């Protein structure tokens, strides 16, 4: 087979082709269920092994097979990990989405496609470089078995691309060898396919393209892991023993990772018995009920869910608040409301997590920005839930939870003790210590609890969601009820001292402009600030929220600035609402920058939104 066979020749671009080294975006357009995922992942890992930071994003449909799926890779030696607008190299493997895929290429960019079947010229663009390879016919010629054709086609295009953008084939070979360790035949077959693709490209395609990779040292000791897995590890290290869950995208992989890690790390070496219990409940009402039952009984327990699950758990969350029972909920957010866009990201459960349930309630939130913090907060949440005796939320989103990210290696201090909060022991009871389940003895509004079964005659108490007095006795007396509600407010003040502090980063020069953000918006911020500085000359101080309720540092930041941009991935500026409610600050100074179409927020978007406000030329509004 020669390039002449190709239905569409290589086409040059009418604008100068983009020239970039270690700084571009490659996007694969595939059909889900076609096995492309592992090939694409291999591609990303190879780049990482070359020491070049890469940030992949999986964009998949809410179905199992046959619909469009994309894998977008941001390659950035500078370390920019946020999503970026536009594609430099589009690997268009899905005819269904051809038009929009071609459209998304930047002027001067590149299109790689399978030209086995001819396409009319109108299907292309003049301002891009088109690279056609007769992938299907080439693969079919080499393989007879349909299953092999499907599998190796993916490796072949990886091979071709490795030649086009200069990936070290040795690295890919090594990765394949690791992946299929022990299955030498498979390794050899994969290596062969890889080189077939590579050789074809070297012989027939314009290698190298203007987009080039060069070995680098910017990855450092960082690891590559998704937030859900890291959070699960955090829960494990935090001592969680009970996980009750109900499958829901994008949170299922958190419980599944916990299952895997428990299998590995938490079995009794001698008996093989499990020091954990994972129950797939019948729904979210049951999963949170189990978590609360386990927490009541002294085990560390959690569930993982997404928006619809939080809605269903609302009644139980109120019970946990009012009866003061530890529980941890990992909410991996997706686009709401209702079923919404189940496979798209958003930060739109902030409001419900903070205030879930009827009556006067508030709940602490932890807001990790990346897998490393997912791990940290996963472990911390267990301590906080026991310490505060309430539901603690760890709020991730699909963007963090389901995508692998370069992140600082996970660390654990072996001298760290799990903080089990205030638990009165049998000895203390025996020694005559006064036990009032809802009695504030230490002035921090956190009372002692006992585990069921602790002592034959002391420390037993009755837990209920109804009003009771300091000694857990049922009462409908208004004053006892009110005392208790006031203590819960005071406990909220204690919580403020225990939550992770917001992280402040000041601009080089003093400024009265600030930006507040949290969670998965984080990686886009530094780049956005660079863009803003370029476009407007302005610089901003930054505050990254890591928790709710806010500590005094947040109030200080708000007080210290005249205009603060609150960047969020929801429509209703939910975190801004919490800031105003809790800090009593004037809404006028908090400017919304809102992105909520389900795609991850980009630096460009943030920059546009902020720049338009600083320098109000007729640019599109941030919220649009």
């Amino acid at each position, binding site marked *: 087979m020669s390039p002449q066979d190709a239905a569409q020749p290589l086409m040059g671009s009418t604008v100068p082709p983009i020239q970039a080294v270690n700084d571009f975006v490659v996007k694969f357009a595939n059909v889900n269920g076609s096995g492309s995922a592992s090939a694409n992942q291999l591609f990303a890992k190879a780049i990482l092994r070359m020491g070049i930071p890469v940030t992949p994003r999986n964009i998949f449909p809410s179905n199992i097979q046959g619909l469009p799926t994309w894998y977008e890779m941001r390659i950035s030696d500078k370390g920019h990990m946020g999503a970026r607008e536009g594609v430099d190299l589009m690997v268009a493997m899905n005819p269904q989405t051809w038009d929009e895929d071609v459209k998304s290429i930047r002027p001067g960019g590149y299109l790689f496609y399978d030209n086995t079947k001819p396409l009319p010229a109108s299907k292309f663009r003049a301002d891009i470089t088109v690279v056609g390879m007769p992938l299907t016919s080439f693969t079919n010629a080499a393989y007879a078995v349909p299953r092999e054709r499907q599998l190796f086609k993916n490796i072949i295009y990886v091979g071709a691309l490795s030649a086009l953008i200069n990936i070290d084939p040795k690295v890919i070979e090594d990765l394949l060898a690791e992946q299929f360790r022990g299955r030498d035949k498979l390794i050899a077959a994969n290596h062969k396919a890889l080189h077939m693709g590579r050789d074809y490209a070297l012989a027939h395609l314009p290698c190298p393209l203007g987009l080039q990779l060069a070995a680098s040292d910017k990855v450092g000791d960082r*690891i590559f892991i998704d937030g859900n897995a890291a959070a699960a590890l955090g829960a494990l290290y935090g001592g969680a023993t009970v996980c009750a869950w109900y499958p829901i995208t994008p949170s299922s992989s958190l419980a599944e990772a916990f299952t895997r890690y428990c299998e590995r790390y*938490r079995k009794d070496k001698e008996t093989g018995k499990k*020091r954990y219990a994972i129950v797939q409940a019948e729904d979210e*009402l049951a999963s949170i*009920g*189990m978590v609360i039952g*386990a927490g009541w009984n002294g085990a560390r327990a959690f569930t993982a869910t997404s928006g619809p699950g939080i809605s269903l758990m609302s009644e139980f969350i109120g019970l946990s608040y009012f009866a003061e029972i530890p529980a941890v909920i990992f909410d991996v957010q997706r686009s709401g409301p209702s079923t919404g866009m189940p496979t798209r990201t958003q930060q739109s459960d902030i409001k419900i997590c903070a205030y879930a349930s009827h009556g006067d309630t508030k709940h602490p939130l932890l807001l990790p920005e990346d897998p490393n913090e997912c791990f940290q907060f996963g472990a911390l949440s267990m301590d906080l839930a026991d310490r505060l005796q309430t539901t603690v939320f760890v709020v991730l989103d699909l963007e963090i939870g389901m995508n692998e990210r370069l992140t600082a290696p996970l660390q654990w201090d072996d001298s760290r003790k799990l903080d089990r909060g205030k638990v009165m022991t049998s000895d203390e009871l025996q020694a005559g210590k006064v036990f009032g389940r809802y009695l504030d003895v230490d002035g921090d509004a956190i009372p002692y609890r006992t585990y069921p079964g602790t002592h034959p005659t002391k420390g037993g108490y*009755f837990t209920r*969601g109804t009003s009771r007095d300091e000694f857990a006795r*049922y009462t409908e007396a208004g004053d006892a009820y009110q005392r208790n509600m006031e203590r819960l407010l005071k406990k909220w003040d204690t919580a403020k001292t225990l939550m992770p502090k917001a992280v402040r980063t000041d601009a080089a020069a003093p400024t009265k402009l600030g930006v507040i953000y949290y969670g998965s918006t984080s990686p886009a911020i530094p780049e956005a600030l660079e863009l803003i500085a370029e476009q407007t000359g302005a610089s901003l101080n930054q505050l990254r929220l890591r928790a709710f309720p806010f500590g005094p540092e947040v109030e200080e930041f708000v007080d210290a600035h005249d205009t603060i941009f609150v960047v969020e991935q929801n429509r209703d500026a939910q975190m801004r609402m919490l800031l105003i409610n809790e800090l009593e600050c004037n809404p006028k100074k908090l400017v919304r920058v809102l992105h909520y179409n389900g795609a991850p927020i980009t630096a460009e978007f943030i920059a546009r939104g902020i720049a338009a406000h600083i320098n109000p030329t007729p640019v599109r509004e941030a919220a649009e």
Partner: protein
Amino acid sequence: MTYLPKPKLAHPELQKNDLGYTRRDYEGSISTLCAGCGHDSISAAIIRACYELSLPPHRIAKLSGIGCSSKTPTYFLGNSHGFNSVHGRMPSVLTGANLANRELIYLGVSGDGDSASIGFGQFSHSIRRGVNMTYIVENNGVYGLTKGQFSATADRGAKNKRGVENMDEAIDMVGIAIQLGATYVARSFSGDKNQLVPLIKGALQHNGAAFIDTISPCVMFNNHEGSTKSYDYVREHNEAVNFMDVVTGREEITVDYEPGTTEIVRQHNGGLLKLRKLANDYDVTDRVAAMNFLETRKARGEIVTGLLYVDPDAEDLHGYLETAEKPFNALTDEELVPGAAALAKLNASLR
């Protein structure tokens, strides 16, 4: 309206059980239910069963949902930890509690509204999982606490106090429990303590999901003519299949019963169930036959009571999950945290 603790007068003459506890040690606060409410009799039966089995009161965890029935755990076992959770969700809370510490005895108390209406899902799924518990439904066919609406166990055609007929098909909790894999299933009547106490004892000793449907008339809203859950109606239609005695491991069995009339079932933990058969050929260990018997008799309008089905070798959720013996809430940091070295290794594998 603070609940009054029952006055604990010193009764030196009160009999003590094997553990040295008196009946008083198993009591709770004074009941605030209506005088004559069937639920109070069930509380009394629970107290007697625990006393007679010499269970250490504080090693029992009692859980409930919301309703008059669900209030009762306040009125027994005052030294035990209790949990009056939310409406219809006791089963999940109990399941979680059970996972956290397999060493306690779990007693779930619920109502027919709590378990058959709002809680039907949780009831069913906790049974399917084989949670090791004694699950008692105090079944009066109405919502007592919200003033007498029909619950899902009200029979089709039964009338409420104002004469309105229930038109929905009734849920037979016993039939469902057997279908869904409960391994100890009984029905009884709050008015028959002699039958009820041994059934509770057997359930407390059972390893697995034990369910007791206890018909418990609501004197306030469902004890009138036209009700099928009134004291009179149940007395008239009650058909016991057997009469049970629970013999604890310590006692010796001297088999001097007539063959065919008495059956001895040895449960997993050594406890013995001594069953005097009242219905011929009723085999309590035959699931399919039990279901057919029940359905046949139900069609005839009989309320079948007694021990209806038992699998003496049942497995429980912990068995299925293969969990370690030590309660999770007692595991040490060392047993829980893999440590820094493991993490370093893991980091290495993620590059």
